[in-house]
């Protein structure tokens, strides 16, 4: 979830009003936002945005816009549908085209090369002009770019954004596929020409984002009509046209990516933010040599979102309250959503900077927020249902009660561990490969300490012993918990088992003791078992028994091999019991 840092004054300017700290915290709930760090001496405040489908809120202008619409002085009386032709509720963003209604672009065109179709096919752009850009706005623009491209654009894979000095550009801009080795330019941050391949190998941004294009035979490349380089998307701008500074008055902004709709939305968000900042937005036409969902000529920023229509009654059922048409429309307007009603049916138009209405329920949530939580007093659930624990849980509790009765302290361990814990400490060299094969291993462990799901509770019981030599002996400890074992017959290739593991660590601990305890346990569980000879290198030979119920192996008990104890650094004899409680529980039904 993105966190943004912004000037509180700027936020209040966009909001059209000021808030005290408490008021702001309360006010931000409508945007599912929280104050992460309160305002500091420099007037900076850090805010966390929880809704990953609302990238329009990840900037000062965007968040301020939401607060203005909801909490601003005009919020209560916002006029609806000022401009029937405009998708925007306040008619602020007249520069948007619609698929069937493109705005005039003048000379501002981008020509796309057919070779991009299979590489990074889409581009959206616009230009702005206005007052000399201030540092605070420039910083905000850079932050917006980072958040949009990182969180919403999946680390530039889906969306990368570039900002340029428009007065250095000769239209049309050309979006082409370039040879990585013979194409060179001076990237931002350096003063020497590098080839595109050198950039992804040497430039810091190249090393960070080069992976997105590294496998391609030709790399995306953006130049103007004279061949002046704008950038190497999605990696780096040029040091010339691509070096925007405070004081610039005319900017060209483009975004490239793999999916057109998210790209169009990101483009819309940045355009609206700059419009709110007082800039005039100039649309750009993109000419594709291949088909896109919106044709071969797409003028951006583009309002492509579709309205959602539903019965008001559906919203009433979900919210549990009666809603009135006019009031519902007015509450949606507080959320920036223009809506119309026709005989109980409501049609909601997503704001130009939002594309999160996948289903009517998404509009229902905007209704909920628009009305405010207080409009929906809580009501106790009415339906009668029977509660119950799982059979496994009930059986586990019975087993735990018996273990506690035998003097055991219950433990609870983490389920992830290392090769050393689960394999190397437990098995001799020549058996480790097989033992590893029986474990569920993580392909992308964060650390070798957490690389395996435990196949047994015994290693962790011995791990507890290895750190507890200071605790008064004898130690009787156990855990009932999950283990995972490989099972080729299972759809998932493994099985999760509820297991009991118990260890006695004491000078007197031995086979006979745990054998007697197992006998007591089985007696009180109403089960008969037979011990059977087994070869298991974790135990002293001849002092280990597999336990069979109706011929099926349900567990093992015995004296831990001194070599295993030495591996763990344990200097007190240990005897253990381990049982598969899932098998035990169902063993009564076996024949």
């Amino acid at each position, binding site marked *: 979830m993105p966190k943004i840092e912004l000037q509180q004054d700027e936020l209040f300017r966009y909001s059209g009003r000021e808030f005290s700290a408490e008021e702001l915290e309360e006010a931000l709930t409508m945007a599912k936002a929280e104050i992460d760090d309160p305002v500091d001496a420099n007037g900076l405040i850090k805010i966390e945005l929880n809704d990953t489908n609302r990238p329009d809120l990840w900037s000062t202008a965007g968040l301020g816009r939401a607060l203005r619409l909801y909490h601003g002085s005009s919020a209560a009386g916002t006029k609806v549908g000022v401009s029937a032709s405009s998708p925007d509720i306040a008619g602020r963003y007249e520069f948007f085209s619609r698929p069937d209604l493109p705005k005039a672009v003048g000379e501002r065109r981008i020509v796309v090369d057919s070779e991009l179709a299979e590489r990074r096919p889409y581009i959206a752009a616009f230009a702005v002009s206005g007052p000399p850009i201030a540092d605070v706005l420039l910083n905000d623009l850079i932050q917006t770019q980072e958040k949009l491209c990182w969180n919403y654009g999946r680390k530039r894979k889906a969306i990368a954004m570039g900002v340029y000095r428009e007065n250095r550009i000769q239209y049309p801009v050309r979006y082409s596929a370039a040879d990585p080795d013979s194409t060179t330019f001076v990237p931002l941050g350096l003063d020497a020409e590098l080839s595109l391949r050198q950039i992804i190998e040497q430039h810091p941004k190249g090393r960070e984002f080069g992976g997105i294009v590294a496998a391609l035979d030709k790399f995306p490349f953006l130049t103007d009509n004279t061949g002046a380089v704008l950038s190497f998307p999605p990696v780096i701008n040029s040091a010339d046209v691509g070096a925007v500074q405070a004081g610039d008055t005319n900017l060209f902004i483009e975004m490239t990516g793999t999916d057109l709709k998210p790209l169009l939305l990101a483009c819309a968000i940045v355009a609206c933010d700059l419009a709110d900042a007082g800039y005039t937005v100039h649309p750009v036409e993109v000419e594709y040599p291949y088909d896109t969902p919106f044709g071969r000529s797409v003028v951006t920023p583009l309002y492509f979102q579709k309205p959602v229509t539903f019965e008001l009654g559906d919203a009433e059922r979900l919210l549990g309250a009666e809603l009135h048409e006019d009031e519902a429309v007015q509450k949606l307007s507080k959320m920036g959503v223009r809506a119309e009603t026709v005989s109980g049916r409501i049609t909601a138009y997503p704001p130009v900077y939002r594309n999160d209405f996948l289903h009517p329920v998404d509009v229902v949530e905007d209704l909920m927020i628009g009305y405010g939580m207080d409009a929906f007093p809580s009501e106790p659930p009415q339906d009668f249902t029977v509660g119950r624990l799982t059979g496994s849980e009930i059986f586990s509790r019975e087993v735990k009660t018996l273990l506690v009765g035998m003097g055991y302290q219950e433990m609870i361990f983490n389920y992830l561990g290392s090769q050393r814990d689960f394999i190397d400490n437990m098995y001799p060299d020549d058996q480790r490969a097989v033992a590893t094969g029986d474990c569920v291993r993580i392909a992308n462990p964060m650390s070798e300490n957490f690389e395996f799901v435990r196949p047994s509770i015994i290693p962790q019981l011995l791990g507890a012993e290895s750190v507890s030599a200071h605790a008064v002996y004898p130690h009787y400890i156990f855990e009932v918990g999950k283990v995972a074992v490989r099972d080729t017959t299972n759809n998932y*290739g493994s099985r999760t088992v509820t297991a009991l593991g118990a260890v006695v660590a004491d000078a007197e601990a031995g086979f006979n003791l745990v054998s007697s305890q197992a006998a007591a346990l089985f007696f009180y569980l109403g089960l008969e078992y037979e011990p059977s000879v087994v070869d298991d290198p974790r135990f002293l030979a001849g002092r280990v028994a597999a336990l069979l119920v109706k011929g099926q192996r349900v567990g093992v008990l015995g004296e831990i091999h001194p070599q295993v104890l030495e591996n763990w650094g344990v200097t007190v004899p240990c005897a253990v019991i381990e049982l598969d409680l899932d098998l035990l529980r169902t063993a009564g039904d076996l024949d």
Partner: protein
Amino acid sequence: MRTDDDIKSLHPLEVTVLRRYGVGDVLTAAVLQADLGLNVGQSNQALSWLAARDSLQEHNRRVLTRYEITELGRDYAEHGTPEERVQATAREHGPLPLPRIAELTGLPNKDVGSAFGKLSKLGILGMDGEKQVSYAAPPGPSAAQADIDMVRALLRRAVSAPQGLLEENELAEDERRLIGEISKKRGSAGAAFRVVESEIVEYKLTENGMSLRAAVEAAGLSGEEVGTLTPAMLREGSWKEKSFRSYSIQVPPSRILIGRRNPYCSYLDQVKDKLVSLGFEEFDGPLVETEFWNSDALFMPQFHSARDIHDVYYVADPTHAQEIQEPFLSHVAATHEDGWDTGSSGWDYGFDRDFTRRLILRSQGTVMSAKTLHEAKVPGKYFGILRCFRYDQVDATHLSDFYQTEGIVLGEDVNLRTLMGMLEMFAVELAGATDVKCVPGYFPFTEPSVEIHIKHPELGWFELGGAGIFRPEVTEPMGVSVPVLAWGLGIDRMALMHLGLNDLRELFSPNIENVRLRTGKQAG
């Protein structure tokens, strides 16, 4: 004031001592040993116990100096001191050279030399030009000769004294001077005596002691009371003649190790029991899951940022499940692509049917809510406390595996208001909340979504959990057409408070002593 408890708590040794002594008597360990036949340990115990009760007061503390005869001293006592032996040999066999005297006496040369030096000064021995030593009759009784005789006498007395010890204050003044000269400090060899110093503490009865003594007499305690009731006494009936000593009940009892539940597990059980009491049925499932159930079935698009390689643990082998159950796979795939029959526009991308089989470690408990949907009853309530795995650096607030508490409620008439009613019920029943507030929330699989913030009597305001109404894109592919409330509670913070801990790692501590000593607050 004397109480019965004081009397009853007296040990028989204390009773015996109190009964034997009165005002003005000086009590030491040695006195008790001599008078009462106690051993050293019993004497010292009785004195320190009574002193601790203010019944005895330290009256004097002195250093007792004693002289213990050494092996050498015993040899001198039997065969004579070097002076005596050199003198006698010279007298009988002289004149002789010194080495010859050493031979005859069997004494080392240096002892013979120093004895000759002393005796020649006294005029008892003389040496001629030929270095021959000869005996000269003493000019008469001298102090020096008396010393030699006195040493001899001390040696003889020491040999017959108990443990070969002579007490300094029982010696005459001359004897003290002499014995001091011929003794060496503890541990050195080559002397006839060694000095032994010890501290003697003398006690006298206090007023308190006198009144305790009177109370003991009044109570008829003899010090013969019995400690343990034995099976033999019961068999033989001899207990009838015995009187049983009262025990000192204030003495801290010794520690025993008991069998015991883990308090964190007990806490989880309490939560489970509470949810069962609210009509919820428990669900459970495997630790290894598929991308399908972990995320796809929850309508999280396959390109969602939370589904990155750095957010989920992938299983190394096998990498993919053999199959995903139909018709759920087809329904979910279509829902992602174009919304299927759910009324949604879907995510508008090509659903990857290979990726969806990818095996991972369950990263959210909501997996089991999704898996339960197709077989759930209506109305129905379900929950699970499920171990989940996260790709997180382990620290005080993050674990790589931990429990999530999740559940669902299905019903024809459930809605936002009943959702909040249920959350308030959780807040009061599970957390003892004194105030509850719901605010809009965001979860990929619910719409609308809320967060519940509660005011806890000890922790203050915090976020107890999140909830919402499952999106139709989640429920309809599973064949569920009624609204489904989905909720998740963060109970670890309350668990830490319950256990008096502040580090999540401590919940899973392998340290046996820590776990033994850990207690949760009492339920109720």
